[in-house]
């Protein structure tokens, strides 16, 4: 076999990595290279350096070390039974690509994942070696996200956490049963144990010893995970239930939802329909309501009788329409918790309302300037110069928001 060029390998190994949704480069420790002795900086906020026509941001060089894999996960392009072309980067090739891309301001850093080759320990140790070269030989101070292999040895995980900003382990599917069915080599309990281990190490790295000495850092940007939506029959309620458990149990920064998308050379065992992008979007909205708006899981799923979120309207609007008795709210009196439940009001809008109404009563026009989406909020609020009147009680309120019914296409 002729030797592959770096360009050919890059084509194969970036194509193989695109099904990982995570691209965040935010939330890590602040550092820079103003001293002239290294390359890179991190401000704590992420930067999206480009956008692909699929609407996803490109912040990190997201590649696989290799797409050879001994596992046979049905949903994955790299499973052992797939006929996609295979390639493998050497550690130096990955290091060089990362540094050269970074110097040209294409990326914030590296997101390195890998198929499982030989054994979990061998794979993890190669990935750690790449991170070590970047940090110690190239003095690279940009962002590194390492995908963690769940059953790798503890000292490799410790080393990965010392070098990387973020670690992640994908739970892949919403239930243990689905994982067993579609990813026979993966063990859900082992994945949970690995996430527990990352949380404990992260907490230990924050504790100063009694002498005030800091222990070595461990993944300052925390850990995240990804779950594939639409590959099995799980409802949104099941998916969100899993997310709340994961957030509570392992202190995850993010759960990413990835709509199952057709892949080249797909397995016959899975449906090849176009990816449920709207469903993915609704799940993210619900996830935000759970984390930043004080909603409980039951509140969101109670507005979705069959366990799936309404695809036509967002989950907050769906909840508000199901609880019309609580509205309209007076924006000059309502509490923070109440305001957060108004459709069309975000956390920032609510903060602005609270800070301004200390000085004066708010008028309808003020809300517009504060960034509220009044088309949505209008029926649910009162302000000086505005009452929704009969609007709040119209029976067809939902149809004002939902898209008009569409005739089914014959083709």
């Amino acid at each position, binding site marked *: 076999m002729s030797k592959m060029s770096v*360009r050919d390998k890059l084509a194969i190994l970036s194509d193989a990595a695109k099904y990982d949704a995570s691209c965040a480069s935010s939330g890590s420790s602040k550092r820079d290279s103003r001293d002239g002795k290294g390359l890179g900086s991190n401000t704590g906020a992420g930067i999206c350096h480009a956008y692909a026509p699929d609407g996803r941001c490109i912040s990190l060089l997201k590649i696989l070390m290799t797409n050879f894999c*001994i596992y046979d996960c049905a949903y994955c392009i790299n499973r052992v039974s797939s006929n996609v072309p295979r390639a493998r980067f050497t550690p130096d090739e990955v290091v060089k690509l990362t540094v050269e891309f970074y*110097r*040209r301001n294409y990326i914030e850093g590296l997101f390195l994942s890998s198929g499982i080759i030989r054994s979990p320990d061998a794979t993890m140790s190669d990935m750690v070696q790449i991170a070590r070269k970047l940090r110690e030989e190239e003095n690279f101070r940009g962002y590194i996200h390492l995908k963690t292999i769940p059953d790798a040895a503890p000292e490799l995980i410790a080393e990965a956490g010392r070098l990387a900003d973020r670690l992640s382990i994908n739970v892949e599917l919403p239930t243990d049963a689905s994982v067993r069915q579609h990813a026979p080599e993966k063990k859900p309990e082992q994945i949970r144990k690995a996430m527990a281990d990352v949380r404990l190490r992260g907490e230990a790295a924050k504790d100063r010893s009694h002498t005030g000495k800091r222990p070595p850092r461990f993944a300052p940007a925390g850990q995240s995970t990804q779950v594939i939506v639409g590959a099995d029959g799980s409802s949104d309620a099941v998916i969100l239930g899993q997310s709340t458990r994961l957030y*509570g149990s392992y202190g995850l920064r993010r759960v990413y939802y990835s709509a199952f998308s057709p892949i080249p050379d797909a397995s016959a065992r899975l449906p090849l329909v176009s990816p449920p992008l709207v469903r993915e979007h609704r799940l993210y909205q619900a996830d935000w309501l759970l984390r930043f708006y004080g909603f409980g899981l039951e509140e969101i799923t109670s507005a979705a009788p069959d366990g799936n979120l309404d695809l036509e309207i967002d989950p907050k609007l769906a909840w508000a329409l199901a609880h019309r008795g609580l509205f309209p709210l007076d924006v000059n009196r309502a509490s923070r918790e109440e305001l957060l439940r108004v459709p069309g009001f975000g956390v920032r809008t609510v903060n602005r*309302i609270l800070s301004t109404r200390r000085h004066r009563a708010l008028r309808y026009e003020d809300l517009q*300037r504060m960034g509220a989406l009044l088309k949505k909020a209008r029926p649910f609020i009162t302000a000086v110069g505005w009452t929704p009147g009969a609007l709040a009680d119209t029976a067809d309120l939902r149809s004002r928001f939902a898209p008009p019914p569409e005739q089914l296409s014959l083709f």
Partner: protein
Amino acid sequence: MQVVSLPSIGTAAAWREAARGYLSAGEPPEDLRWHCGAPGEAGLFDTAAAPPAPARSVAVPRSFVNLAESVSWHSDPARFDRLYAFLWRLKDAPQLMSDRGDAQLAHLRRMEKSVHRCQHKMKAFVRFRETGSPEAARRSFAAWFEPEHRTVEPTAPFFARRFGDMDWRILTPDVCAVFEGGVLRFEPGAPKPGLPEDASEALWLTYFRNIFNPARLKVKAMQSEMPKKYWRNMPEAAAIPELIATAPARARAMAEAAPTLPPARTARVQAAAEQAAAEHWAGPQDGLAAALAGCTRCPLHCAATQAVPGEGPQDAALMLVGEQPGDREDLTGRPFVGPAGQLLDAVAAEAGVAREAVYLTNAVKHFKFRPQGRRRLHQRPDAGEVQRCRWWLDAEVKLVQPRLIVAMGATAALALTGSGGSLMARRGTVESGRQGVPVLLTLHPAHILRTPDPAAQARLRGLLRSDLAAARARAGLALPAAQAGQAGQVA
């Protein structure tokens, strides 16, 4: 009408200085006309003069200073007039800054937001090409960029912090930033230069093409974040039209392609992997612990991290049984390591019971909880779960054969004696266990932690201590040497 000229490099600081002068001189906004760069056409009654030096200190809210700093870089020629007009009002009404509904302020905030966005996009979309030798000790790069606002000056320090070990220049029509040998300076604007070809650009395009998923085309989402006006200076944008045009056909082809047969190597690779897995360490291998780790006897295993087995000498004379693992126990896989465990360690030590001498376990081996925000709230296991998990507890009792078991809390009492009667009424007594080993009943240390009143807490702690001391005596455990002399006080 007085005309105030501001320099095009260092504009923000110059405006601030001039505005302070005019404000302290009481100059109203109607009498001033601000402009930046080369002087424009002078009006009939215009006079140019240096701004007065501030006579007295002028205090404005910090938030306005930050706002003005950003707005100064906006491309709107009227930006300084707007800033000064608002500053004039602010002087008598400092609370104006927190009025998010004020129309003038809202306009300035919108300008500020536009500048911030422009700065952010500049950090993201500037593309360097290498202009020197890749072998040089300090490599050199250059970029041509056309920002919407005059954001080079405020954004250049970001690039200096990021690319500290190389020389670079960012050229724009208005002003250029040059970073050489670790020193940042600004020069007047330049026309578009011809930058040398850069081999990394082809690799970057390869990456851009291949990270795109044709099955999820969302052109609008891309354009709202990466507007077309930036495309002409981004090498990867050249690939976009073709990627969009071919995406539907590529997605269709993936869906229509018949599933292929697995390659011949599949079976070989999997057989080898299986063998490797058998050689690989995969958790506790023998007996009870291994079996427990795979327990699916009740649904609790789906949410918990792991089953937490008992811990201690296999021939311990005394066994302590709690309710179930908590948050810390679930994460670490060891019993009694959380707050209740630490309290138990302390009270047991006071009672002369060393943790290392006893076998510690729980009636239920998986953590039962309800997630709330970032926390997990403990939930009491129900009778069915206790009953199914007794399988493991009984096996542990059989294995250790203790002389006495201490049941801490109602759940442990139920599991060990089969009776769920009121615990506080039975506390301190010894009942016969289901397997013939006597069971001493006491309260769970977590119960002490949940009692708010300090006096009641101390009383409950005393009860647990005396029960444990009684258990120690009954199980025939020796006192640790340090406590042997004062045994009378403990019991």
